[in-house]
């Protein structure tokens, strides 16, 4: 049986690479990545995930609209835990509350990310 699957939605390629490497190394997860909300929504419509990590401000579709659609859609991720990763802290906190998601402000310490991701994966 394969490990947990995580979807990373982030338009910064360097950050995607960092998150992928870090998460794979720490949690032996499989990581899919999408460069914007539209792509993320397409992944989430098809594949069940144990966790979704998403930026907010992205081209095409922002992270908030994407999470709303995932939650309200008919796909397999209606109740998948979501972490909003954003540099816009006020916006991120407010959106996390509204969407029943977790918030992690950029820049983040790896320790904090590990704790949050570890908690959410253990619960799922």
């Amino acid at each position, binding site marked *: 049986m394969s490990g947990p699957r995580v979807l990373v939605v982030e338009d910064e390629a360097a950050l995607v690479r960092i998150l992928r490497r870090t998460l794979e190394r720490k949690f032996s997860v499989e990581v899919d990545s999408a460069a914007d909300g539209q792509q993320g929504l397409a992944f989430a419509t098809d594949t069940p995930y144990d966790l979704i990590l998403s930026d907010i401000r992205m081209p095409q579709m922002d992270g908030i609209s994407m999470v709303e659609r995932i939650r309200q859609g008919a796909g397999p991720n209606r109740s998948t835990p979501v972490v909003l990763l*954003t540099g816009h*802290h006020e916006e991120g906190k407010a959106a996390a509350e509204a969407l029943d998601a977790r918030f992690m402000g950029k820049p983040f310490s790896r320790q904090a990310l590990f704790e949050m991701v570890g908690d959410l994966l253990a619960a799922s």
Partner: protein
Amino acid sequence: MDADDTATSHFLRNVIDSVADPIFVKDDEHRLIEFNRAFREQVGLTREQLLGKTDYELFPRHEADVFREKDQDALRSMRESVNEETITDAQGVMRTISTKRSAFVGADGRTVLVGVIRDITSLREAERRDLEMTQRLATSAKFAALGEMAGGIAHEINTPLAIIQGLADELLDMAEDGGFDRGDVLRLNDEITTTVERVSKIISGLRAFARDGRKDEPDRVTLEALASETLALCRENLEVLGIPLELSGSAGGVLVSCRSTQIVQILLNLLNNARDAVAGTPSPRIELRMDRSDDDDEAQLSVIDSGPGIPPQLRERIMEPFFTSKPVGEGTGIGLSIAKGLAEDNGGTLTLDVEHPNTCFVLRLPRADPGDTGEEDEP
């Protein structure tokens, strides 16, 4: 003097007394020989107290010095002159006046000086208040634009910081694994350096925007540098809205002479307008275009948007202060007028290209003199 003369003289005295502007007449030794009621009231002295007096007996020395000099000029040249001066009135209040002087030669062969004074104190005061108001509005418009960008800037900076943190963690992993691969270290170093440069660029753009560039010496910069400084500040804002911003054209590194801060302000203003014009339209697009102008003395930057365009009846008015086509509460109506003023301050122009099928604002800037600082101009 016969009866007729007396009647005429009386009549003329009434005529000049009925004029609301103070009038004075002096002989060639600068003594007052005639004046009207308005002049007496301004100075606050009686006819007897004034007749035969010179300005030095009536006004503070620094004011009298100016009056004497201008009187002498008029007497010498016999030409009409208008001069702005200050005068302390009967209440001890300093007034700003515009004095029109002329001279003629009287029947006795001596030169006579006639002055008409117009009090322009309230006019100048109103102008000063207008100017202050314009400056205050310019500042508040700047801060409004800055506030609009602030959210975007937090994200712009925090994201690269997250990247740098991630790369630092990668180094830590390498240390823990006990194997430093030379290629990996070089790659990480390169990525960190590039990311730090990205943050520095945003910060220097922000500092340049926030400070007052009005008194800066003009820089010699390329259009490419101006465009990239501007994009660093607004790219995020447009990206969030899903509005692609295309940088097009080429000025081939030609240098223009301008205060960069102000040019960035103009471009941000135009890009903000373009954003508002295309937001919510199908397939929105904004283009920032660089061109060597047809005119060899200039180069130009154009901001073109895919919006619905500016209705012909509004084109004439869009650069007027306080004119806005945005809904109440959204536009201040001073953005474009200030942008136009800034362009002109930099020896350039800001115009709407009415020939263009889309909305296209063209900012022309004077090219820097080749070699005026001994630098190499051509790429």
